């Protein structure tokens, strides 16, 4: 793993994008063949399955280090990362093992079927042969959570540099469900990585930037197409050469979870790729996101579930027709061909054209946006009529203009140290609302404040701790925050009986005393209104 560890050290030791790309490109040029493929897999989020539960690892590491388990638990929040905590507490190695990355991956794959005693012995032996960095990387592979501060875009750029191929070709080649254990590097970058759905590989998704400036800045409204921003799962339905595949944005093949959409694919002419939003849909509108969630979790879909949360593809764009790649064509043309395709299909299929929202001026569009929630959408999408279908998130041609979030003022009741970069600041908070005389916790949030605010609040937390439960501190209920969220859903698991969608801190309300926070009744009313 020495070569991989050196790459990690190079990436970790610089904050500059150019230096990161250079280190990666060098690695992709010179590292051993199977290691390169595994590195691409790890950096594009194809994580190995967790071979051992985190709790077992902590236990075994504590034992190997001769430390009480509780002390390891105390150290963990200070470090903020389990793989690193374990690497730091283990006694120095007694031997030096040098296995390549791909050997380690094969070793890991062999671990899963063995019983716990055998896994423990194997892991203790592995730890004893690795240095601190080696252990850290090994633990990362073991716990299945690999991030090296490299975005997919950066990796794509480095691969393009190393292989002399175009970035867009590389991005396309990496999509789909290729298996790093059986794919050769040359095949992978050439787009010939085999795998389920390989013939029906998706195009890289084009993503919109949030609109922050007033829309007037976009210029002439006539150049822009507006439609709802639906709140479902972005997906690509590809029908090619007798194969139908439904892909989610993370290149996950989800065809089996949505059999009704697979059936739709069979009705499409061969050589078709539609970009759209998978929604749970009943009658004239989308069901709340919670309904769709019941479909995502299941590998096998019961008839009951199919009836309760039927899926539909809300079509946004046509990327391929008759086997021809349309992405370079203007959006207006792709959209016209999509409309014609949808109109020509037999009735009753779970496919709709996402309706265009015509608008004469930006003021009218703002008025339409205000209606988004009533329609079951989370805002608007603005697409330049002349735009090509790009790769990744780019500014300029596609914008998402979300509705203003719901808000409620709540008081902080628990604080916990953050992870990674925020390991010593209290950044993860639990908030409560009033319910009669009681304060009922209802949401957690860990983003939305500045570093300076986090520092100030961390000092406050240290001075106002009432109780400590491991890394969690119960604090004096005094600090009030405005919490933004996108919706409410019922949740019997939570004490409040409900859960927020995308809660985050909008601001610290230094001006507001805890006596003036919101009530749980407000959220219950919102829930009732959404359901009705």
């Amino acid at each position, binding site marked *: 793993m020495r070569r991989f560890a050196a790459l990690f050290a190079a990436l970790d030791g610089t904050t500059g994008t150019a230096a990161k790309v250079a280190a990666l490109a060098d690695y992709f040029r010179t590292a051993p063949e199977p290691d390169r493929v595994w590195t691409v897999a790890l950096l594009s989020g194809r994580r190995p399955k967790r071979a051992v539960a985190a709790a077992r690892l902590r236990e075994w590491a504590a034992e190997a280090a001769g430390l009480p388990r509780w002390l390891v638990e105390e*150290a963990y929040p200070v470090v903020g990362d389990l793989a*690193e905590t374990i690497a730091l*507490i283990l006694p120095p190695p007694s031997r030096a093992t040098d296995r390549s990355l791909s050997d380690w991956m094969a070793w890991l794959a062999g671990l899963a079927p063995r019983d716990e005693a055998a896994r423990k012995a194997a892991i203790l032996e592995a730890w004893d042969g690795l240095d601190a960095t080696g252990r850290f990387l090994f633990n990362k592979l073991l716990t299945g959570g690999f991030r090296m501060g490299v975005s997919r875009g950066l990796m794509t750029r480095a691969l393009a540099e190393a292989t002399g191929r175009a970035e867009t070709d590389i991005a396309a080649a990496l999509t789909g469900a290729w298996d790093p254990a059986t794919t050769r590097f040359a095949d992978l970058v050439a787009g010939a990585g085999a795998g389920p759905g390989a013939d029906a590989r998706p195009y890289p998704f084009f993503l919109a930037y949030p609109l922050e400036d007033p829309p007037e800045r976009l210029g002439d409204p006539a150049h822009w197409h507006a439609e709802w921003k639906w709140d479902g799962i972005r997906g690509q339905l590809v029908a090619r050469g007798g194969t139908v595949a439904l892909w989610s944005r993370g290149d996950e093949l989800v065809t089996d979870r949505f059999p009704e959409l697979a059936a739709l694919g069979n009705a499409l002419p061969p050589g078709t790729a539609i970009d759209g939003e998978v929604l749970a849909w009943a009658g004239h509108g989308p069901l709340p996101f919670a309904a769709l969630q019941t479909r995502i979790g299941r590998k096998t879909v019961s008839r009951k579930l199919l009836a309760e949360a039927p899926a539909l593809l809300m079509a946004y764009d046509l990327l391929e027709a008759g086997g021809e790649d349309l992405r370079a064509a203007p959006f207006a043309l792709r959209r016209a061909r999509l409309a014609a395709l949808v109109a020509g299909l037999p009735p009753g299929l779970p496919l709709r054209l996402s309706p265009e929202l015509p608008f004469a001026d930006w003021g009218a569009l703002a008025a339409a946006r205000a209606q988004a929630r009533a329609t079951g959408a989370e805002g608007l999408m603005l697409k330049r009529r002349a735009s090509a279908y790009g790769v990744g998130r780019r500014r300029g041609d596609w914008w998402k203009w979300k509705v203003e979030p719901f808000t409620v003022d709540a008081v902080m009741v628990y604080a916990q140290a953050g992870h990674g*970069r925020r390991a010593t600041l209290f950044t993860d908070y639990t908030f409560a609302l009033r319910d009669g005389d009681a304060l009922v916790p209802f949401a957690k949030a860990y983003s939305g404040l500045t570093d300076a605010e986090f520092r100030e609040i961390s000092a406050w937390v240290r001075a106002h701790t009432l109780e400590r439960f491991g890394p969690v501190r119960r604090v004096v209920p005094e600090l009030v925050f405005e919490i933004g969220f996108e919706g409410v859903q019922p949740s019997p698991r939570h004490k409040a009986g409900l859960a927020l969608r995308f809660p985050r801190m909008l601001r610290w309300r230094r001006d507001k005393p805890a006596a003036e926070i919101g009530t749980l009744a407000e959220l219950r009313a919102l829930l009732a209104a959404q359901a009705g």
Partner: protein
Amino acid sequence: MRAPLLSPDAAGLACPEGGFHVDPWRPVPRAVITHAHADHARGGSDAYLCTPGTAAMLRQRLGTVQVQEAGWGEPVALGAVTVSFHPAGHVPGSAQLRVARAGEVWVVSGDYKTAPDGLSEAFEPVACDTFVSECTFGLPVFRWPDQGAELARIRDWWAGCAAAGVVPVLGAYSLGKAQRLIAGLAGAGPIAAHPAVEGASAALRAAGYPVPDTLPAAPPLPPGALVIAPPAALAGGWAGRFGPASTAFASGWMAIRGLRRRRGAERGFVLSDHADWPGLNAAIRATGAARVLLTHGTTAAFARYLAEGGLEAGALATAYAGESLDEAGA
């Protein structure tokens, strides 16, 4: 039972029988100072007692104050007790304070480090009944690499920066850590020091410590120069004056990846002026103390660990820094 020899009051760690406070955080009639770091040596007290090395720094920081100096191991009678200073190995001149009354000895560690750093007087364990120990790094995740190996990593980074035409700027606490680096890196190339660092260096040179001379950190720097500055200067964008720079910190906290990344530095070098986990445990055992009172850091957890090992251990509430992991200068 007699009252404890030392116990915290509003002003600091008080010794009523001796009529003094150790490292008080509020002005008192008589302050006994372990070392010159700002959280241990504050101004405003009527009289100070410390080692000659600490006295030099104290005069530099606090101006003309009434300072009595006592050499290593020299007994000083204060009220009904006798005190003496013993090397703590934390920074040049830093001391542990031994406090004795009939039949009982306490030692206050101040801040300490057990491995020699080449500049500070090396730590010496002092036998006692009660040891007031700091535990800034009192968790088993903190194990320092060998100083020589870390200095070699710094030289590699420095050479890499010189080759790439960027200025290496190393953040290090201006008293102690910076001079340890200057001494350890001397001869590898020109070193330029921030004014705060040079102020401390000059005071230490005057007190007889062999701190090599450095250049002022002002552009234009000679080619291949390394800049050493306090962490706060780096956070404040001071390094911008040198053009393209690569920043790094030297601190025990750099052992933790997340902390290094949060500081936004490209490199972190694990070089601490405090004892690591093995060092703390060894130092505590070496005193033979049956009772250990802890300051700085994760005191509750460390006290529990020591108690499980058979010692009487507890946390002492103090106002010393080091509680905040947010400062990379510890």
